[in-house]
């Protein structure tokens, strides 16, 4: 039985932060969960989907975060607890609906969103701090410090949501989402037997019960602020806020979320427990002002430790200003003072650095003799740039694009997008992508570029999106291009997977989040229905793909589409599709550095399955990594890379 659905309260299991979040929602008795995949939040929904049938939960990958939030709200209106999950950017997509939902209020049942931020941006195009946007929305915000707390907080968030009739956010960060740790399971609050029902009777004493509308605006805006004040009252006494330390610490750390353990570990490492106290806030918006004011009165120095924006820092300083002159001799440290940064992921080491400065203590983890040896080793450790996988169809597509644009000769370029193919701006995509912003934005940007003929623009414009992105954000921009007769080609890189976030199905795959079959929504048919001419290519058919690109570029008319269709290699691996070719390098034919190709295969093409045999001075196949896609045989100018049909 899955740990996620095990109804054995008190049992300790090992859960990924994202799995603990899923468990929390299940313990809360949700009836519906909707999300769009986005790391670091991507594993939450699949964890629920895995047990969706036994727990009687409808689980879905929605096409984007706005729809996911609307799905959740719909369920709440009918009295069913509803859960949505997204990464930081998702809140931007959902924002227009959430602002309005806050005016109408939710239904009787709670709505909770788990939103995962990505300090360090390892799986994102930006480092947005979603807390600021939830404050702007006027929604309550909780921040768990561990997987255990994530589970418990999600459950409590539903109670908060219902108590104040507002959507409630729980904000995690990458480190929380992707840390696996001990979690003690709680009781599952089964919602079975509760009938979903949209209230139909107009009740004068409780008019919102049967209508969820946003107007008249001023009438509904005032209660929103009253709700936030009510949340503040709830937060003042929440056990998710806690203090560890002396009664009157020399330095008070105010922290939240994953940073909490960085603070306690830094204090332990510096043996500074008698000097520094830690106020951990689990409820960060609205700020529990009475609680914080009480702690401000116990010290003369405050350090804020939080990831990304100085969010709590600003709220507390605003509070401190309102408490003047009582707070006039407080000194504040944090992102504002430069002791920590409002960007990048924090760590215990960074907190140690901040503390050594403030407390005037030193910290030397390693002796000088060892550090000297480390310095010598640093010199030989090369960078390891990230790459597209061996056999990745995107490498084939970018190779064809590079060749077609060179042959065309008019200095065409690519407007890129978010996904594995984001790597197209660097060496894995031969630097072909020249713009990259939000999901689907490459197409919007191409719309603008494609309508500049009147001011002399004559370069071909290619825009990219993936198959999942197509449904999420590309369709309006493509309609715009067809309607406004913008001159660009959209390349839909259809690898039949949301590959970067973990192969979640989407409307084009014929599969639901639960793995059950679904209606296939046909990208090609949609594009044609929009009025765009469409070609379909297999990028592994290099000649035909290059030809098609060249031909389409010459058309110079309106928005056109090429669907580059080839299954993601990692999906092939998962489905145990055997390799097509056995590859080897004919070392007689490979001329090495004498060829003049300047190591085209290993240096430029850069598939991980190819390596440079230093001793022989020639190319070779890395049999541990080569997946036998056969593509490199087409690029070697000396025809030295040989593909043979794989046997069995």
């Amino acid at each position: 039985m899955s740990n996620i659905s095990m109804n054995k309260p008190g049992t300790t299991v090992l859960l990924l932060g994202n799995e603990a979040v899923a468990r929390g929602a299940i313990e809360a008795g949700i009836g519906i969960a909707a999300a769009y995949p986005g790391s670091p939040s991507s594993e939450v929904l699949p964890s629920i989907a895995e047990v969706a049938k036994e727990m009687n939960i409808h689980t879905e990958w929605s096409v984007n975060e706005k729809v996911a939030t609307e799905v959740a709200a719909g369920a709440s209106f009918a009295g069913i607890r509803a859960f949505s999950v997204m990464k930081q950017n998702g809140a931007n997509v959902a924002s227009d609906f959430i602002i309005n939902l806050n005016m109408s209020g939710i239904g009787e049942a709670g709505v909770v969103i788990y939103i995962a931020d990505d300090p360090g941006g390892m799986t994102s195009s930006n480092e947005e701090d979603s807390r600021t946007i939830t404050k702007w929305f006027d929604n309550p915000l909780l921040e768990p410090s561990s997987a255990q707390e994530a589970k418990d907080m999600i459950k409590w968030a539903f109670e908060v949501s219902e108590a104040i009739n507002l959507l409630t956010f729980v904000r995690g960060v990458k480190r929380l989402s992707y840390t696996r740790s001990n979690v003690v399971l709680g009781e599952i609050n089964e919602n079975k037997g509760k009938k979903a029902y949209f209230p139909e009777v107009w009740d004068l004493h409780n008019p919102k019960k049967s209508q969820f509308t946003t107007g008249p605006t001023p009438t509904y805006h005032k209660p929103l602020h009253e709700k936030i004040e009510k949340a503040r009252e709830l937060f003042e006494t929440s056990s998710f806020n806690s203090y560890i330390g002396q009664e009157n610490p020399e330095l008070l750390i105010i922290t939240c979320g994953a940073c909490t353990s960085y603070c306690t570990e830094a204090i332990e490492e510096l043996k500074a427990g008698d000097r520094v106290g830690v106020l951990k806030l689990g409820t960060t918006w609205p700020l529990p002002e009475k609680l914080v004011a009480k702690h401000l009165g116990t010290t003369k120095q405050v350090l804020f430790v939080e990831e990304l924006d100085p969010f709590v820092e600003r709220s507390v300083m605003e509070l401190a200003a309102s408490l003047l002159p009582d707070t006039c001799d407080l000194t504040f440290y944090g992102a504002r003072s430069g002791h920590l940064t409002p960007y990048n992921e924090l760590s215990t080491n960074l907190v140690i650095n901040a503390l050594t400065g403030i407390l005037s203590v030193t910290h030397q983890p390693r002796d000088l003799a060892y550090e000297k040896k480390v310095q010598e080793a640093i010199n030989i450790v090369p960078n390891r740039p990230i790459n597209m996988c061996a056999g990745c169809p995107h490498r084939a597509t970018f190779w064809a694009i590079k060749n077609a644009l060179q042959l065309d000769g008019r200095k065409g370029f690519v407007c890129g997008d978010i996904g594995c193919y984001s790597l197209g701006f660097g060496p894995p995509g031969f630097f072909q992508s020249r713009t990259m912003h939000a999901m689907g934005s490459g197409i919007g940007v191409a719309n603008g570029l494609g309508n500049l003929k009147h001011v002399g623009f004559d370069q071909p414009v290619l825009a990219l999106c993936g198959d999942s992105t197509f449904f999420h954000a590309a369709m309006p921009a493509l309609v715009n291009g067809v309607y406004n007769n913008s001159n660009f080609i959209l390349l839909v890189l259809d690898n039949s997977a949301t590959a970067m976030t973990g192969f979640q199905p989407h409307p084009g795959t014929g599969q639901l989040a639960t793995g059950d079959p679904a209606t296939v929504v046909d990208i090609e048919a949609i594009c044609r229905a929009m009025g765009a001419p469409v070609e379909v290519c297999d990028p592994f058919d290099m000649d035909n793909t290059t030809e098609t690109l060249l031909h389409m570029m010459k058309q110079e008319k309106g928005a056109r589409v090429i669907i580059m269709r080839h299954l993601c290699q990692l999906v092939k691996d998962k489905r145990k599709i055997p390799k097509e070719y056995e590859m080897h390098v004919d070392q007689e034919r490979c001329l090495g550095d004498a060829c003049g190709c300047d190591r085209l295969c290993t240096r430029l093409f850069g598939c991980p399955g190819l390596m440079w045999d230093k001793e022989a001075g020639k190319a070779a196949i890395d049999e541990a990594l080569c997946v036998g896609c056969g593509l490199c045989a087409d690029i070697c100018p000396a025809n030295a890379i040989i593909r043979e049909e794989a046997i069995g």
Partner: protein
Amino acid sequence: MRKGELAKEPFNFIISGVGGQGNVLLSAFVGAALLNEGFMISVADTFGVSQRGGSVTSHIKISKKTLYSSVTLKGKADAILGMEPVETLRTLVEFGNPYVMVIVNPRPVYPPGGVSYPDLDEVKKSIIELSSQTKFVDATEAALNMGNPIYANMILLGSLVGADILPISKGTMISILEERFPESLFDINIKAFDKGMELIAKA
């Protein structure tokens, strides 16, 4: 190591490798085994785009008394399982100290785009210099002999358990593997695991 005992509190263990080598799978097995042995653990894996051929590390902080944050403090690793030599050295540079124990697969995974790979002997020498004890286990070689490089991570897992660095008994790990592998894949993976135990005994 005696059952339930930790050489240090907390004990910092790191698995380092290249995206695609199976770090996350190994750390999940090690984590599950440590939980069954009764420890409080935090495991940090690298997810997302760095899995595409970049450097990946899994940090496992093991304690008998409390849950720590997952990421190892600078210079505080107690043991490292290296799936790739340069990545092992990279981990030592940041987290190594004179007392750290290392098990490493000496088979290189070359970086893309013509980034040159240092001389392997020099890398091995540096690893030895930055650790208290280094054991080389040619897991990829042994896996290719078994017919598929994919078994390298099970071989390394066998070596890790055989080396007795972590408080995980062979029985505990086998029971985890029994849970996680379908019957059809269990025998071959146990064979790889045993191969790793055999190799570490000779290393």
